[in-house]
Every structure is written in C-alpha cells, then in structure tokens.
C-alpha cells in the first residue's frame, strides 16, 4: 500500500492537472463563441457568391467554360487538401479527419488513381506521413497566425490554382471538419477543383435579362478563383469552431475524470490514515497492559 505521503503527492498532482484542464475548457468555451460568430458572419458572402455562380455557370457551359469549371479533361491525379488543427488537446478531432482523408485516399488508389496530399495545419502531418510519406506535396503552416483569416485562405487558394494551372493535378478534394455541435464534428470530403456546379436558385435576378460587364466568361473566370478562396476560408472557419468545440468537450471529460480520481484517492488516503491511527492506539494499549 502506498504511504500517506505518496498518496498526498498524487492527490495534489491530479488536482493541478484538473486545474489546467478546467482552465483550457473555459478558454475553449469562450473561443468557441467567437469562432461560431465568425462562421456566421462569413455566411452571407458565401451564399451570394454561390448564387451568382449558379446563375452564371448555367449560362456559360460547353467548350467556352474556363478550365477551373470543366477540369483538365482527365481525372488521373488527385490532390487531397486536408485541413487539420494546429494544436492538440481536442479529443479525436484530428484522428477523425485523418481517418476520413485516408479512407478517401485508399478508395482513389484502389481505383488506380494517383493521390497526393496538401496538408493545412500541424496535427495532420505525423499520422499521414506514417502511411503516405512520399505522397505529401506540401505543408501549409497556419500556426503562426492566431486566427487564420481570409489572407491564409487566399494564399492556399492561389497556391492551389497555380499548381492546377501548371498541371500538377486534375482533381482536388477538400477534407475538413464540419462543426455540428460541441459534441459532434463531422469530417467531410468535398470536391474543390474543378469547381462543382453549385446547386441553388439559378434565377437570382428573376427572369429579366442580366447585363454583364465585361462578358459572362470573363466574369466567371474572375469568379471561380474567388469561389475556391471562399470554400477554403469556410473550411478554415469550420476548423476553428470544430477545434474549440472538440477541445471544450474533451477538457470537460478530463476535468470530470480528474474529479473522480481525486475522490477515490482521498478515500484511500483517509482509510490509510485511519488505519495508521488504529495501529498506533493498539500499540499503546498493548504496551500499557503489559506493565
């Protein structure tokens, strides 16, 4: 049995761990609110953009469509853009994202396609490197900025589009978590390039004839990179909210577990203290009787 001093030490150490997890939980809760507000604020832009996209994409089709919309004509080389978090302490979130990415990669490889990875965020690197070390194209570091904003999304999108123009890949998929609630974040795989024709109300401007300046194709050509940027920006925001949500839940569990452990250890501590007192008393009584 552990000595009293050892028990006391353990109780104290668990108590300080609990303090840390509790603090992290509260920080995550506060950050979650902000992340959710940011995600909410980004929605109008994305909605308008896909509305305009839908009405334009319906008009411009066939051979005149830009490459970003119709693709390169083959679908041999796939690029998986995996959006992970930069920090840990958020439960199984990153493991789930990586699992979804690997499942997609396996599926594509089984179909005889070439797969490469483009990683955003720190936490996806190690687990993907273990299985697909030579397929990783690039790490995009977002750990230096406190909250990734539109600039980061822009940089990623520009890089991706440049690679696409150079013909480094044919199809790009985006793997990112969708924030449902603090308890559930679903990893999702979406096609990013070529841009899938957005569904939606194609007649945003009603039946009236819309005038375009410069021309429909020129506008669409400008619009598509913007659309990719917006998609990436949205995924970064979702990631932020998911990270904080998952972190909050994980830390809540950790705090509760620490509480249980402290209770158990305290009972054990009190029992052994009582036992020690009883032994001492017996010794004294036995000594007195012997006289």
């Amino acid at each position, binding site marked *: 049995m552990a000595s009293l001093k050892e028990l006391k030490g353990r109780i104290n150490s668990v108590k300080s761990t609990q303090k840390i997890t509790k603090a992290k939980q509260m920080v995550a809760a506060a950050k979650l609110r902000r992340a959710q507000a*940011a995600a909410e*604020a*980004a929605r*109008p*832009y*994305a909605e*308008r*953009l896909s509305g*305009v996209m839908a009405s*334009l994409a319906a008009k411009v089709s066939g051979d005149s469509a830009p490459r970003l919309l119709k693709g390169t004509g083959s679908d041999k080389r796939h690029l998986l853009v995996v959006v992970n978090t930069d920090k840990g302490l958020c439960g199984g979130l990153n493991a789930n994202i990586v699992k979804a990415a690997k499942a997609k990669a396996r599926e594509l490889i089984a179909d005889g396609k070439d797969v490469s990875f483009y990683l955003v965020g720190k936490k996806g690197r190690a687990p993907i490197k273990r299985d697909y070390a030579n397929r990783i194209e690039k790490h995009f570091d977002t750990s230096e900025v406190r909250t990734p*904003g*539109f600039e980061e*999304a*822009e940089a990623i999108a520009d890089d991706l589009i440049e690679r696409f123009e150079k013909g480094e890949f044919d199809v790009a998929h985006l793997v990112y978590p969708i924030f449902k609630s603090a308890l559930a974040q679903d990893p999702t795989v979406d096609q990013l390039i070529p841009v899938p024709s957005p569904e939606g109300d194609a007649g*945003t*401007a*009603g039946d*009236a*004839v*819309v*005038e*375009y*300046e*410069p021309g429909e194709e*020129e*506008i669409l050509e*400008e*619009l598509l990179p*913007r659309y990719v*940027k*917006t998609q990436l*920006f949205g995924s970064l925001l979702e990631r932020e909210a998911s990270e904080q949500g998952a972190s909050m839940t994980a830390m809540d569990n950790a705090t509760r577990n620490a509480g249980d452990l402290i209770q158990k250890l305290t009972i054990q501590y009190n029992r052994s203290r009582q036992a020690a007192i009883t032994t001492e008393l017996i010794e004294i009584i036995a000594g007195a009787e012997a006289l």
Partner: protein
Amino acid sequence: MALHFELVTPAKLVRSEDVHMVVVPGAEGEFGVLEGHAPFLSTIRDGAVQVYKTEGGAPETIEVRGGFAEVGDKGLTVLAEHVEG
C-alpha cells in the same frame, strides 16, 4: 425611393442599408446605381465605392479591393474581398 445597398466581405456583412445612389468602380468604368436599375453584373477594380445617402448630399467613400457588383430585384450587392477601414 430608395436603393437597397449591401456590401459584403468574406469576413462579414459590412453594410446593409437603404440609400439614394451608389457609384461603383466597375472594371470598364464607374457606374452609378439608382433604384430600379436593370439587372446587371460587373467585376470591379480596386477603388472607392461612393455611397450617396441622400440626393445631393456628400458621398461617403469606402475603399474596396477585388470583387464584383450585382444589381438585381433586391437592390445592389457589392461583394468585395477586402474593405479598407
């Protein structure tokens, strides 16, 4: 007689209000939008959007970078990537 004007960036909805007229720096030249403008879609170049709250009043200028403007039944929507200030 008012034009519904919205200015949206990826980060947030910057403006949503009823104004008299807005002058937008289109890719092929500036154009003013009043109420009842025909449906119109244009890319914009970097420059200032001038918002006239009232007829004849002094315009409020907002610097925008990259994006496009859409005029529809619901009014004018400017989608800009960056808004200064």
